[in-house]
């Protein structure tokens, strides 16, 4: 386990200086919309919170963290804070494989396709799409979280944004619960899967749906994706611990203790594998962590988008 103070100082410093936890310049992280026909005006703004875009970088950086956890060299992480954020961010960006970035950008493109097929009046403004700061909240850096969230909400309010469409549970929770509570700013927030509205019976498959903690417990949304899939003729095989009693994928511990994170992830994967069907996740952190445990996981948006193509 790393000293939490060292990790929090690095992440908080990066968010303060670059508005994201890895220090990677936003134009390098948020590229999914390039060359993809996206409306610039509409009723609700698609707000990715950059979480899916971060997954390849999380995977790369936690690989190094796992290598040095509980070793003598691991103690030197405290000096990482002396490296300028953009420099370490650029370095991380260079060593992160392009095909992984492409894969996760594809998930967001699928979400946009789903919204278009559902005739949702939405638009995308990359300049307003920022990281929500939720990791700072989870790590206990309340002051850092509130400052960052104020910045994000302030930009959205100044642009007159009232409605947001989200793609991951952590950002959704931040916008629905944390922003009103700690920043005093509210938006009308819907997840993309609550807006799915197209007819297709092309699913013809069985899947194992892993409910993330934030949709299952904190936001009580587990039934929605299940219904969406059922309507598309995709059967969700029952999982032992699901919905409000879903089990964690272990992802939230990955920055402080990759070992612990993998241990918890392995246990959840064992449980999910009991069904014998392909695992489907709807959270970038779950997706990344279950993959680390060796699972072949698909994103919910991929399964829904496949029904469009057939």
């Amino acid at each position, binding site marked *: *386990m790393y*000293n*939490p*103070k060292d990790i*929090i100082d690095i992440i908080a410093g990066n968010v303060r200086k670059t508005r994201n936890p890895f220090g990677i310049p936003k134009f390098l992280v948020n590229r999914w919309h390039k060359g993809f026909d996206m409306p610039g005006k509409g009723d609700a703004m698609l707000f990715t919170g950059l979480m899916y875009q971060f997954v390849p970088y999380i995977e790369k950086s936690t690989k190094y963290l796992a290598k040095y956890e509980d070793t003598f060299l691991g103690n030197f992480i405290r000096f990482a804070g002396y490296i300028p954020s953009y420099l370490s961010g650029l370095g991380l960006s260079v060593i992160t494989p392009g095909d992984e970035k492409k894969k996760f950008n594809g998930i967001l493109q699928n979400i946009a396709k789903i919204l278009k097929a559902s005739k949702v009046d939405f638009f995308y403004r990359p300049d307003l799409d920022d990281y929500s700061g939720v990791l700072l909240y*989870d*790590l*206990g*850096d*309340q*002051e850092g979280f509130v400052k960052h969230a104020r910045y994000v909400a302030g930009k959205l309010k100044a642009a007159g944004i009232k409605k947001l469409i989200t793609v991951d549970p952590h950002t959704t929770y931040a916008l629905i619960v944390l922003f009103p509570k700690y920043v005093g700013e509210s938006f009308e927030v819907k997840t993309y899967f609550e807006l799915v509205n197209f007819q297709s019976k092309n699913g013809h498959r069985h899947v194992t749906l892993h409910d993330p*903690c934030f949709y299952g*417990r*904190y936001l009580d949304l587990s039934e929605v994706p299940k219904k969406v899939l059922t309507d598309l003729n995709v059967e969700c095989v029952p999982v032992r611990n699901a919905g*409000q*009693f879903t*089990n*964690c994928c*272990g*992802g*939230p*511990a990955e920055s*402080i*203790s990759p070992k*612990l994170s993998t241990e*918890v992830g392995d*246990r*959840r994967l064992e449980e999910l594998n009991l069904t014998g069907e392909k695992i489907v996740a709807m959270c970038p952190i779950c997706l990344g962590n279950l993959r680390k445990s060796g699972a072949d996981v698909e994103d919910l948006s991929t399964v829904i988008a496949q029904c469009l193509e057939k």
Partner: protein
Amino acid sequence: MALLNPNFAEEMEPFTEDTALACFNCGTCTAICPLIYEHFPRKMIRYIQIGAKDRILENAQELWRCLHCGLCTQTCPREANPGEIILGLKRFVVANWRRS
């Protein structure tokens, strides 16, 4: 020997909702916690109740094992919200680090 601070629950107030005293230490949170780690989070909540601030600070690192998954809060028979208490302790410790 631990030094007890009877006003510690009050000291925690700016960092979390005042639910720690509702806990009757049944251990459901520990039984359901995916960490399967000693007496976590029950032990930490007990430390708040008896005002063992030093013990919390000595063992602060353990707090960041918590995944904030919410299973403890979901199953707590006293609605003491153990998950939020642990998050509040993290905030308390971070504020302490920043002050020192």
